[in-house]
């Protein structure tokens, strides 16, 4: 059902945890299934220096969250905003069709955090 990549990120999720000195946080809950992500960002010079997450959800949601953090760490905020759930799913070598919606969680949580950061700077 799940790819090796999903299983890897599910069993050994990267960048799990909280950040006490985050520059921004974003929380996103899927209305579809109740899955929820919380994203913590450390930003410097428009670049995501550090990122952490906490996720409540199924394996697909957890793996998506984990790989998302790897995909955007060290990238610019613009890069982060351009991350799509398809990119997340693809990086995981695909997700079962009925689990595709779980990949949104990761991208949407990230976008929320970036927006919060940008709003805070204004």
């Amino acid at each position, binding site marked *: *059902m*799940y790819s090796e990549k999903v*299983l890897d990120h*599910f*069993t050994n*999720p990267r960048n*799990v*945890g*909280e950040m006490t000195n985050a520059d921004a946080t974003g*929380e996103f809950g899927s209305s*579809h*299934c*109740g*899955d*929820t*992500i*919380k994203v913590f960002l450390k930003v410097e010079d428009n670049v995501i220096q550090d990122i952490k*997450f*906490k*996720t*409540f*959800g*199924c*394996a697909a*949601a*957890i793996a998506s969250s984990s790989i998302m953090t790897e995909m955007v760490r060290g990238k610019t905020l613009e890069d982060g905003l351009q991350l799509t759930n398809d990119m997340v799913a693809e990086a995981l070598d695909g997700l079962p069709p*009925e689990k595709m919606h779980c990949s949104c969680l990761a991208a949407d949580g990230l976008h929320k955090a970036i927006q919060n950061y940008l709003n805070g700077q204004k």
Partner: protein
Amino acid sequence: MKGERDVKRIYLDNNATTAVRPEVLQGMLPFFCEAFGNPSSVHWAGSQVSPAIEKARGQVAQLLNCQPTEIVFTACGSEGDNFALKGTVDVLREKGNHIITTAVEHPAVLDTCRFLEKKGVEITYLPVDGEGRLDLDLLERSITPRTILISVMWANNETGVVFPIHEIGVVARRHKVRFFCDAVQAVGRLPVDVQKAQVDLLSLSGHKIGAPKGVGALFVRKGNPLTPLIHGGHQERRRRAGTHNVPGIVGLGIACQKAMDELSFVPGRMEPLRECLQSGLLTLVPEIKVNGASAPRLPNTLNLCFAGIEGEALLLHLDIAGIAASSGSACTSDDHGMSHVLEAMGVDPLLGQSSVRFSLGRDTVAEDIDRVLEVVPGVVQKLRDMSPFWEGRACRRAS
């Protein structure tokens, strides 16, 4: 996904399905390639086979304490459920159009009721309390002169909660209302006697009791006509058409025979193991809830909520450790969201998403339980550590 090759596989999902018992398979084998005839045929190939069908019918009847002619073979529990409900509605249309059921039935009953509702049948879905129990008075008060059927399951597949079938039978008889019981989860785990329970229709499914998938039975009490779900040939006294699933039926017969033989000790062996699992988890893992804990329950079923985490993620961790369990019914495990059973029990929606069901089988041993108790606390902790709903409770856990 698979358990690692080198871990012992522990199957605790016997409410979803069971392995075919070796003696059942042995008994079935001659009926595939050798005694392959159609039991409706009059020649040697048919007459080799029809006594085997009748023997199996007798074995099922004996387990339920009814006449062999009152057994109709079906393809599965769902077919029996649909047959009982739709067949009753069709045949008793003159008499009324009201059915009383519960909010926690299996989808094979609930979905059928919703379908019938669209066709103008009035359905009362009885609520349950926080422990999953029915209010018998409410049931009785729901009966109207237009009520044609009471449909209550013997035991709930998700929580294992057992309903007071005998008492409901008394109520149904008193009001002369037909009574159907989905006993798919109860058969083989509890004594199911259709005379004592005074049920008129009762469904069971082979694959829950060590018979193969693809066969089931419906008990239809004499004098309770039922419009066929499957029209056609004269099989099953014109109650269910279609060439008999001979090996499946033979297997169901043997499984019923075995269930009968073992009823005095197998459930009694499972219950202490289930208790051990339950008390072990309650001791080792904080903030868990046993669903239906104070209701009468099947001896093999344990349904729990693990606050702060999502059930499927826990299941996958268990799976990787070789442990097969399930979240709610296997039939809805690819649906997200809470089970309709826990919802009816008033479980908080977030908590409801964390439910996991362990269902023991006749082969479950104490080592299996030990292993589960070894694995669960760690993975629950791991998932809680990454859950945004667990923050701030970390201290509580540590205490």
